[in-house]
């Protein structure tokens, strides 16, 4: 009994620590600036909700436009990442192509400090007029996500039993058919997890978006960051923007919870 009480005590404390701050975004988003900057303790939670922050966010700033940019950039880059990662991961997992070293090289792109790539790309993009364009930032996100997507998918492919493929080959299937009709259906859950990961990472990315976009391709994280100025900080619109922008990731997190454990272990264990 005591053990059970202790279990729930710790669990509730942890959950409060996790959800409290996230909830705070939504509470702040509905506060007037007077209620945000007050030091009156009860106003932390007792206040008259207002939609002013959202109104300002949507009318004074190109919020929807920037959110649209984020969506376009995330979706397009993820599609390309999958087209490259899926076959590569299959090759690594099924034939151990390159004896593990090629896989290592692939993953090591993720070890690059972001700035190593940022400097040459910045100069290249300036030359080719790709700064502040969708194409430019999409290219960067493809670079940013491919290695990790390959690594994740590699883990899932390793779980596909080789015997199944051999049986299909005996039945007269060609390589392409084996992949399409036998391997691909088995890999679908893994593919889904990896896709959602790539979408979320692009959605959340800040460093490249901050350096490479200004107006036409500005993503929503950069817009939100712009409210934290050196002179004044606009907490209200910042919270309203964040509240809307993080909603898709929160929903995705909720639904993915079951599969994410599997994805996070990279096939090192059978989950």
């Amino acid at each position, binding site marked *: 009994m005591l053990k059970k009480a202790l279990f729930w005590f710790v669990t509730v404390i942890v959950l409060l620590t996790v959800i409290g701050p996230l909830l705070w975004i939504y509470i702040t988003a509905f506060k007037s600036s007077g209620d945000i900057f007050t030091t009156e303790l009860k106003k932390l939670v007792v206040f008259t909700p207002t939609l002013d922050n959202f109104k300002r966010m949507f009318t004074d700033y190109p919020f929807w436009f920037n959110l649209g940019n984020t969506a376009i950039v995330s979706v397009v880059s993820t599609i390309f990442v999958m087209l490259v990662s899926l076959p590569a991961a299959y090759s690594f997992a099924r034939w151990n192509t390159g004896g593990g070293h090629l896989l290592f090289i692939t993953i090591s792109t993720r070890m*690059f400090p972001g700035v190593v790539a940022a400097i040459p*790309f910045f100069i290249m993009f300036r030359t080719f007029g790709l700064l502040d364009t969708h194409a430019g930032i999409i290219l960067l996100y493809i670079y940013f996500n491919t290695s990790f997507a390959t690594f994740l998918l590699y883990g899932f492919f390793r779980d596909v039993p080789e015997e199944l493929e051999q049986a299909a080959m005996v039945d007269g299937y060609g390589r392409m058919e084996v992949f399409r009709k036998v391997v691909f259906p088995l890999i679908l859950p893994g593919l889904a997890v990896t896709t959602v990961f790539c979408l979320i990472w692009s959605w959340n990315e800040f460093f490249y978006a901050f350096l490479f976009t200004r107006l036409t391709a500005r993503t929503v994280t950069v817009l939100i960051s712009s409210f934290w100025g050196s002179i004044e900080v606009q907490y209200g619109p910042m919270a309203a923007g964040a509240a809307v922008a993080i909603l898709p990731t929160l929903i995705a997190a909720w639904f993915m919870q079951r599969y994410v454990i599997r994805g996070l272990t990279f096939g090192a264990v059978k989950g």
Partner: protein
Amino acid sequence: MGPDTAVRKPSIWEILTSEKYFKWTLLIPLFALLLVFMLYPLFYCLYYSFCQWGMQGKAIFVGLHNYRELLNDTAFMEALARTFEVLAICIVAELLIGLGLALLWNREFRGQNVVRGLALLPLLVAPLVLSLLWNFMLEYDFGAVNQILTAIGLGKVYWWSPNLALYTICFITIWQWFPFSVFVLIAGLRSLPRDVFEAARVDGASNWYTFRRLTLPMLSPLIMIIVVLRAMWLIRLFDPLYGTTRGGVRTELLDWRVYRTAFVYFDIGYGSSMAIFSLFLTIAVCAVMYRELMKALGVIR
């Protein structure tokens, strides 16, 4: 030879999907991408690191000048030391919290999906947004944290003071990333063979003994994964700095220093040499652990 001759020359498609070449065909897109996105930036970054260049005019080759300067650059070395400090604090804390919660939650209990679902949330929200949020909550006068501290009789804390700011940033990072360790370790615990533990219990082994001699060694590949990945990501820590101190009050870390040199002062050459230094550091730190990781995954033996 045309398509109607007796011995038909195999089409390119047939060659590409043949048993011998198929595994390489699958890698063509990746190779193309690596060539453009890895070799190109690496080559140019390396080249710029030997040059003096401010984005205007021509790059002047100066040999090892930048690297020599780097070794005497106290600001850079301080940023380097701080990065290691953050690395150590965050990885140790995340592993301890992760291990504790994984052991706690690795059982069937009512509402387990709700608990795990909620615990996952910080991991998937943009780090920049979370750092702005914490910056707001830790504000000295009207921040929620200080108000609560005052209410329960403790004094206000100036979270962004020069002595504390770096640890505040560590706290934010740990808060966001501890679920990663939790979930990886829960998955690990679930995969452990049951019979070994039952045998241990029959032999009368204590809980602590079982944990230390059975659970921990069997979890070590996953602990390795966590350490490698977190080290890689933490060396590049940027968003929490932008959202809070912007590198001020003694919180400048490696990537922030490079960013400022290259993109604020436009000292491309010097910035590049820092970036290359940081790259080799990452590889050095990770390569050793990486071998272990690959061994754990069974890729190399």
